[in-house]
């Protein structure tokens, strides 16, 4: 089957392409790209085997890569399976998932990796890359057989959400990884500083009486790991950066040439710890009569923390949602390139595990299906341009993985997402294809939705009957303005 994606706004950051045009897909590859210049030129007639997909008013971009997915299979299939995770990925526009080694048994040996590879090949509908465990059982006590893992096809090493407390062991791990040429992906949180904590240490944790996790708990380990990367020459990748201090440390390290990359999640870019207050927030404002005092007023009106009850366990994430100063620093870091990628940290949980007291709720958000729309709030607010956003979901992750980026050049694998950046929708977790319904965004109105996802030339997700009929009139879109400035 061949497809002609017509009249879309093609944004391909890796090739510096932003144009209105058509893409011809054949045999799982991009065959041709027709831009504005080709609009009036003669084309060879289409055969009857070509399906035309009308993408007018929509963005056509390379499929997204998520650096941070928790697949849950094998081991916790009640939370997610490889099939449901890859279906959720397709709904979210992701055509590549990098699986963190948090499945059970821990993929800390070649046999476990081969088992995962087999499952992923059998049940995955998008590309799934595997990250091996850095230490045995992710326990931070003994190194895994890293070379064997690399030979079995791991693309990086990580200990899931855990920080290796032992700095000497961490140095050895980095030295090994450096020799193997693979990145070490770390989640940075000092276990002593964070002990018992469930919320960002600050005004909200004090008001709610929740044990706090100071920003310094992250920054101390970011500083340590940067020093170790500098000493060993390893490629350090900092997962889910959440504080202003971390951004500053990474910026300084990169300036002096340390090989350090970083990712940030959509939720850390857009939500703050005030989401833990839920509707208490609204009540506060009424009480004080100071609407201007609301620190999140810069957030778009369609994101409303007051839809949640106080202490909603869906706001529990690692690292915790920080305050607005940190959020602003993360956006700045994304804009100026210190942060390479947006990574979902897709962490599905079963409802039964989540309808519980805040302090015992498992951390994480099921994020693949909302990631794009949430990140797009930055674009709608004018804080990030759409080309840069797409780069952080395509080119950026590829750079972290040291591979050539997903792109739309002829010959490239046809991993393609088509999304309508203006389409408004309400998050209904009953409609999720992920088994994880845990998200603080339930009931929120978001803007921007994936209409069609193609993985290696195969349509893996199509919303309604998207693209089958010619649309009557081009929709006025802010995209036109964006393109003119390119």
């Amino acid at each position, binding site marked *: 089957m061949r497809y002609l994606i017509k009249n879309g706004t093609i944004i391909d950051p890796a090739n510096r392409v932003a144009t209105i045009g058509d893409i011809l897909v054949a045999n799982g590859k991009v065959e041709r790209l027709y831009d504005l210049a080709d609009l009036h030129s003669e084309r060879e007639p289409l055969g009857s085997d070509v399906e035309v997909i009308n993408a007018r008013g929509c963005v056509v971009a390379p499929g997204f890569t998520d650096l941070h997915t928790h697949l849950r299979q094998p081991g916790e299939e009640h939370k997610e399976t490889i099939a449901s995770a890859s279906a959720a990925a397709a709904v979210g526009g992701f055509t590549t998932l990098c699986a963190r080694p948090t499945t059970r048994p821990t993929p800390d040996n070649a046999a476990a990796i081969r088992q995962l590879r087999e499952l992923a090949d059998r049940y995955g509908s998008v590309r799934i890359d595997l990250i091996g465990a850095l230490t045995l059982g992710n326990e931070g006590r003994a190194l895994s057989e890293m070379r064997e893992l690399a030979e079995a096809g791991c693309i990086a090493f990580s200990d899931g959400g855990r920080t290796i407390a032992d700095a000497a062991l961490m140095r050895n791990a980095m030295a090994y990884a450096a020799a193997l040429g693979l990145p070490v992906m770390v989640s940075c949180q000092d276990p002593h500083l964070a002990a018992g904590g469930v919320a960002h240490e600050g005004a909200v944790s004090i008001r709610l*009486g929740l044990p706090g996790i100071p920003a310094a708990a992250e920054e101390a380990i970011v500083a340590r790991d940067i020093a170790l990367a500098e000493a060993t020459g390893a490629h350090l990748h900092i997962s889910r950066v959440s504080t202003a201090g971390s951004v500053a440390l990474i910026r300084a390290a990169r300036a002096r040439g340390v090989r350090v990359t970083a990712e940030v999640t959509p939720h850390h870019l857009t939500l703050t710890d005030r989401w833990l207050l839920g509707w208490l927030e609204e009540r506060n404002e009424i009480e004080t009569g100071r609407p201007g005092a609301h620190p999140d007023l810069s957030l778009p009106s369609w994101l409303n923390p007051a839809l949640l*009850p106080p202490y909603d366990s869906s706001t529990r994430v690692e690292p915790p949602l920080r305050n607005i100063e940190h959020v602003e620093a993360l956006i700045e870091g994304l804009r100026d390139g210190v942060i390479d990628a947006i990574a979902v940290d897709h962490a599905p949980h079963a409802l039964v595990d989540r309808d519980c*007291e805040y302090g015992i709720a498992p951390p994480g958000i099921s994020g693949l299906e909302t990631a794009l729309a949430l990140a797009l709030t930055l674009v709608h607010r004018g804080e990030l341009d759409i080309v840069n956003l797409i780069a952080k979901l395509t080119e950026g992750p590829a750079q972290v993985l040291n591979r050539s980026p997903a792109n739309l050049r002829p010959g490239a694998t046809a991993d393609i997402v088509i999304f309508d950046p203006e389409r408004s929708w309400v998050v209904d977790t009953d409609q999720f294809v992920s088994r994880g319904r845990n998200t603080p965004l339930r009931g929120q109105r978001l803007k921007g939705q994936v209409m069609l996802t193609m993985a290696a030339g195969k349509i893996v997700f199509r919303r309604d009957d998207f693209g089958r009929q010619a649309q009557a009139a081009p929709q006025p879109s802010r995209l036109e303005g964006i393109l003119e400035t390119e």
Partner: protein
Amino acid sequence: MSELRRHAIDLDDFSAAEIEEILETAESMREVLGREIKQVPVLRGKTVVNMFFEESTRTRISFELAARALSANVVAFTARGSSVEKGESLVDTVRTLQALGADIIVMRHSQSGAPYLVARHFRGSLINAGDGRHAHPTQALLDLYTMRSRLGQIRDLNVVIVGDVLHSRVVRSNLWGLTRLGARVTLCGPPTLIGPAAFWTATWPTIRIVHELDPLLPEADVVMALRLQKERMQSGLLPALREYTRVYGLTAERLARLPKHAIVMHPGPMNEGIEIFPEVATASPAAIEEQVTNGVAVRMALLYRMAG
């Protein structure tokens, strides 16, 4: 009278007028408690379940006496030996109690915010009898009642709360009540047991945070000492109990430096010889026993506001 209250989770949603109204009602309830037959039929036919997931003698008994004085059927539920020990979730426990016909749940829980979860799954009324570090609204109400009955009014009182502020639910509920009624509140304690001042003033902008107790004493109308849990030392928050007592303990010498009319309070249970000394706890400025007595009347007043 204003409309009935459904839940009492914290004092943050009580207006000054509502607090005053409860304190007035508590006055009448004290009168009831002074009668030969200490019972009125306000909650006749209603079932109150005391659901305590954490040990507490005084609060549990106080609620029990209050509910009985209002003629309610009172059932005690303790986590020990119950289905909770067999792994039942909080939500399931609440659904079970609801199916059994509970009208009012009084809950004590070690996790901050647990009452909001329960309130979402319970059709009756919920009273928070203390959740983690978050809130203890009836303790704050009885503290306000005690201050008012000893000192006349709350407005413009200098209230010093000293001790382990960081881990205290009593402090947080008192901050809502005291600031709403116009008191001037100072939190005092070692930095490790308070944290940065800005974290507190973001929510309660009028309060002061200091680390020295002695300079506050001559101006104080109320000094409230908080329980210092011995675990705090093990977790490295304090160098030594002896040092804590030397700087923050309510000793007879410190008592002597308070104005004549000032009162000393403690939410209990006390560590005598650590945050407060026996001779202070029993001296005439101490209102600690009154706090306990007033607790029953205040809880009756709150139950009355919730049941009509």
